[in-house]
């Protein structure tokens, strides 16, 4: 149980001890913890009511509903960048194993993976928004976006997406590259690959169809776990780029000790982890006949 109390309400020094007690009564914080929890559980399970934010006075489900699409948009874009960078470079590094290109890719992926995301974000803002003035510094759309035509609005939103999604995708692609490289190296030394080559199949088909398909197993597991990771991992990007998503909501709810919001977001993250793992297992069964048949 997180210590503390809704700071932005209770920290106000105008609040007398009687006022504090009254607020605790209004929010039900004066009742024993187990009672508070059971009440919350009952309302979720019986009425699908996730409660009302102490701090914002709004239904938690509405707040999450507003933030969720924004995070999904960012996470999907980042995932796309991840795939576009990670898969070609992973394959290339595997095929060029031990050569100069492989060394550079591995070095770059280690560097990317170890650099703080928020720092990259700040440098990117300074560079692309500050020095070069070619990308917006933050937010999801421009200040005057409402006046734009549909097409212009789309472009405007894409421009806002480039930096946060690009950085997040770039950083997470480091893991994709390394996983795919290692997995593909292992697969490419298998007997069935030698057989495929012996049958005279073109190398492209050997790599992309027979090799890659069998090397995707660990990667799919990783992607399954990346789903909740991306949704929550957008936090730093959302903070740095002022992106109004779930990460930011979680960040502020923890700062405020806004318990109903924290509970709902934690439950949601848990569901995403379970869902992501399940999805990974199902996808693995689709691409790998051994898993399907073993099941």
């Amino acid at each position: 149980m997180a210590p503390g109390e809704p700071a932005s309400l209770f920290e106000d020094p105008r609040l007398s001890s009687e006022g504090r007690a009254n607020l605790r009564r209004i929010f039900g914080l004066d009742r024993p913890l187990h009672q508070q929890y059971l009440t919350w559980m009952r309302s979720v399970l019986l009425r699908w009511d996730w409660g009302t934010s102490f701090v914002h006075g709004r239904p938690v489900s509405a707040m999450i509903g507003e933030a969720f699409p924004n995070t999904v948009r960012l996470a999907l874009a980042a995932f796309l960048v991840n795939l576009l960078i990670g898969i070609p470079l992973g394959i290339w590094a595997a095929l060029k194993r031990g050569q100069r290109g492989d060394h550079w890719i591995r070095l770059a992926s280690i560097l990317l993976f170890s650099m703080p995301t928020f720092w990259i974000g700040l440098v990117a803002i300074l560079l692309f928004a500050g020095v070069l003035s070619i990308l917006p510094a933050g937010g999801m759309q421009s200040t005057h976006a409402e006046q734009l035509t549909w097409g212009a609005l789309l472009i405007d939103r894409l421009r806002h997406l480039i930096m946060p999604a690009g950085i997040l995708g770039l950083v997470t692609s480091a893991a994709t590259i390394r996983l795919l490289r290692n997995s593909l190296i292992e697969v490419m030394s298998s007997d069935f690959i030698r057989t495929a080559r012996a049958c005279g199949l073109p190398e492209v088909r050997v790599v992309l169809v027979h090799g890659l398909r069998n090397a995707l197993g660990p990667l799919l597991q990783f992607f399954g776990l990346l789903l909740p990771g991306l949704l929550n991992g957008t936090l730093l990007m959302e903070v740095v780029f002022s992106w109004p998503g779930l990460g930011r909501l979680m960040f502020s709810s923890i700062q405020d000790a806004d318990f109903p919001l924290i509970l709902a977001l934690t439950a949601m993250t848990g569901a995403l982890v379970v869902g992501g793992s399940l999805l990974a297992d199902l996808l693995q069964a689709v691409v790998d006949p051994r898993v399907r048949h073993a099941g």
Partner: protein
Amino acid sequence: MSAITWVHRRIRAASDRPSVLLAALPLALLFALACNGSKEVAKEEAPPTGPRRGGTAVVAVISGPQGVNEYVSGARTNTREVLSMLFLNLASEQPDFTDHPPTFKPELAERWEYSSDKRSLTFFLRQDITWSDGVAVTADDVRFSWQAQSHPDIGWVGAEYKEPIEDVEVIDAHTVRFHFEYPFAGQMLYANEGVIIPKHAWSALPFDQWRANADWFLEHLVVSGPFTIDSWRANDEFRLVRNERYFDPELPYLDQVVLRVIPDRASQLVQLEAGSVDYINAISPDDRRRIMHTPNLVFTNYWGRGYAFISWNLRKPLFDDSRVRRALTMAIDRQAIVETLWGEFGRLAITPVPQNIWASKRDLPPIAFDPKEAMKILAEQGWSDHDGDGTIDRDGKPFAFELVTNLGNQQRMDSIVMVQEHLARIGIEVTTRNIPFNSLMPQLNTGDYDAVLIKLSVATDLDFSQYHSRNIASGRNFYAYSDPEVDGWLEAARRVEKAEDMGPYLDKIQGRLYRDEVHTFVWESQIVGAHLARLHGPEPNGYREMVDGAARLEAVHFQAYRVLIFATAHRGLPGAPLRPSHPPLLPSSLGAG
């Protein structure tokens, strides 16, 4: 101009950021080549013609407003700042508290008068003020606001201010009378605390449903202030547009104010430098030094009404002797702390009344840094290194304690480490810990700490009841200070009828706290803001402490000249500026930020 030449010029313009350039140079060249043809064309607009009506100002805020109803919204200052742009108070408190108690200017009320026994205060409302839907603002709204402020089901955090008010009587549509239990100096402040809300629009929802229906108030929003809400994107952006029915036809100059939520201070700064926001109102001294030569930025700074101090928990035997507390103060090089952390933006604090407030006892000298004398005093109290382990001890117990502060405030986190080092030099073992603010406060309120470095902001009503012994149990007096004489002076100060008459009592209280060394006062600091040079009018003042959000933007404007229009502008046209003005009463407050 070729792309490379252009990039070269831009990089030279940013030459005060060498660390960034090192990281950015290769990428910059790459991008310039990729984006050849993306050029910035800047031109000067027409000659100066004074304030220009129109435009949009983008203000960076750490967090967005938590609702449009002050009485159920979070108590964060930025929420209150935004609401002060939507709703009017009865009067506008002025930032003229340096030499005398603050005065008031008319706002909703055109004048006011006390009864002969000073137990009632009558406000005469302006007759030309309407809500944004055209309905007149009346005395009924004032009474309704008071009912909401003091209703237990609403639980407004400022409800205590309304306790001395027995009733709010509607005399006629534009006359309203506040009846007080007893006369006291703060009657005007207390009556004026909290904005006036629309009865005709908001009385349809029972008070017991207010806390869970923030959206309802937004849907039924009518305002009396210079702006109203145009769009509300939680956690993202809040667009305020001019209230066309605002009583002053000249104001606001701005068409729109966009509050952009940027939760990270570093990002705020970067976006200011990038020109994506026009105004931020709290930057650290380090950042101020870093960007002070950035072109097109204007800095504002003023002394806040806060002071940082180390509070010794007087419940603990270690700190129950004022001589020991004085020795601790003498062993801490507070001047060095102030200079290191704040430079020219800070000064030593001496009493709980900051030096820019009229009641400050300015003749008290700061306690000198003298570690040798400190060791001597401690030795006289039996504290010496008897066992030779480097830590002084008495009766076999080492002089060791934990010093905490709130996580997230870099100055405070740095300063407790400095204090740790200073005290280690005289053999005192200090462990430090940074605790999230929402956990720290319950700890302080229950007395579960040794020593804490924290900051308090002082309200202009100069209520120092946190030193009253009756407030130990409630946690407000978390230092557990108890002195019957101080209790008496506090009560007497509360009962005087003119604020100036509080002065002698406040002098005595400050003198006693100084003598008893209840705290080690460390610093008072300035609040530094920055805005783009194209924006005119954001004149901060000492009345605005804890400025986390927008200063009131009513009279801020864009000067017609010097407005740069970027041909590649994704920023849109520049907007207009901010007015210094009548903020709500800000009481003595603990600041996390």
